[in-house]
């Protein structure tokens, strides 16, 4: 059973809405170890995505993902703009090359994750969004085809975000804090978790 355009649209819609609604939480996480703009950045970007939702959902999936990526790059700014932008641009690019959803989801998601890592020159363990994205990718690979896949992905994201708290940041703005970055959840990890869980929720039909 292949991904339906309506499903795709409702997934994007819910993800955008959830991240927009979480702006205050993301902002206050970013106030603690960053500069307090992550919530507004994500809100601005996903509002722009929502504004183009109809057009996006008429595009083929690869083009749609690239449009989302471009939109994020051009409206978010900060660190998260190029990173999420690169994620979606690369995921769209992967889809263009003979990949299909949902069966190739791990490959497509993996292309996005690689793009974040390349753009950010960062790896797991540096207290960034990668500390959610990489574990999610692992689950997508390891539990592929498993009937519980969606639930497992969602749990992975939730657990991964908590594990960023004890980490010491070496990338992003929180790295300037050195040891003082310890004890706080990374805002970008949290926004990744929100996005991933929104996709899961939408696909499971429980909005």
């Amino acid at each position: 059973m292949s991904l339906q355009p309506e499903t795709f649209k409702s997934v994007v819609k819910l993800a955008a809405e959830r991240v927009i609604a979480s702006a205050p939480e993301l902002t206050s996480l970013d106030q603690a170890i960053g500069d307090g703009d992550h919530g507004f950045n994500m809100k601005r970007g996903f509002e722009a995505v929502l504004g183009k939702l109809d057009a996006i959902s008429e595009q083929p999936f690869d083009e749609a993902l690239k449009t989302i990526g471009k939109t994020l790059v051009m409206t978010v700014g900060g660190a998260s703009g190029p990173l999420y932008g690169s994620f979606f641009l690369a995921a769209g690019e992967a889809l263009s090359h003979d990949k299909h959803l949902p069966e190739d989801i791990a490959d497509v998601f993996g292309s996005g994750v690689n793009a974040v890592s390349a753009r950010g020159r960062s790896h797991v363990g540096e207290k960034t969004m990668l500390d959610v994205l990489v574990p999610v990718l692992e689950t997508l690979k390891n539990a592929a085809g498993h009937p519980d896949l969606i639930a497992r992905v969602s749990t992975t994201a939730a657990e991964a975000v908590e594990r960023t708290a004890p980490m010491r940041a070496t990338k992003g703005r929180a790295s300037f804090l050195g040891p003082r970055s310890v004890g706080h959840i990374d805002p970008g990890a949290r926004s990744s978790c929100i996005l991933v869980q929104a996709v899961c929720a939408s696909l499971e039909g429980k909005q």
Partner: protein
Amino acid sequence: MKKFINSVDGVLAESLDGLAAAHADLVTLGPERKFVRRRELNSRKVALVSGGGSGHEPLHAGFVGYGMLDAACPGQVFTSPTPDQIVEAAQAVSGDAGVLFIVKNYAGDRMNFEMAAEISEGRTATIVTDDDVAVENSTHSIGRRGVAGTLIVEKIVGAAAEKGADLQACVALGERVNARTRSMGVALTSCTVPAAGTPTFVLAEDEMEVGVGIHGEPGRRRVKLERADAIAFEMTTAIAGDLDARDGNEALLLVNGFGGTPAIELYLMYNAARRMLEKRGLRIARSLVGSYVTSLDMAGCSLTVSLLDTETRALWDHPVRTAALKW
């Protein structure tokens, strides 16, 4: 939050419109306010494009004009500008000699400028400034922040570009200046990001935050408020300890206010810092005191010391005509 604003969303646009109108003889706004550029362009020189989050005014738009930047891209408050802003600014101001991006060392600024450089047609090069000694310098991390020293790089490289230096020479000069420039900042109060509406951090009436950046990020440590001399001593010690300075070296001393600190206090800090640096054998040959690289309404200041040589001193002295620096 006590600010002169109409709406949180309008702050940046209205302030940019004001800047462009007040300095219409010097600058003009790009479409959709994506950048501020010089009114008179010189297509034969290397074009200098900088930018970063807003909230640091007059950095960078206030430094656009003869002898300094060709364009500046203002992001949202404390948020790096997007690649399209940078690409369009570069397109608008670049001639045959290529474009030099001057970027403060933040993940966001670096990535957005990097994407812009990837997309830009024509020759581009990038200088990254990272003068903040409050941050540990480690190869495992992104390294140090770029703060007020950026102004010095922009001024000196701006003069060189004006005098005909090519892209490669500009990069080499900028890297040399950056390598010889160190800063450190102290906050007496937090700033308040308009969209957040509340202070980014809260200091008690008798506390200060040592080693802050320019985005309301917490600093090295929170301590009891100290006398100006004690503060200047800690800052000059950290700066001098990190600079490869020799006895008799000439230096430029910049005392920079963060937006909420008046000139009377900045001059007092200048007086303290100068004395201490001179005791260490530096000769303060050039000085700048004022609020040039701010952090919205934060009360606080930073000290920047930049070692000069005959060439960079002459470039510092070279005429400049921008909204915020003129001589």
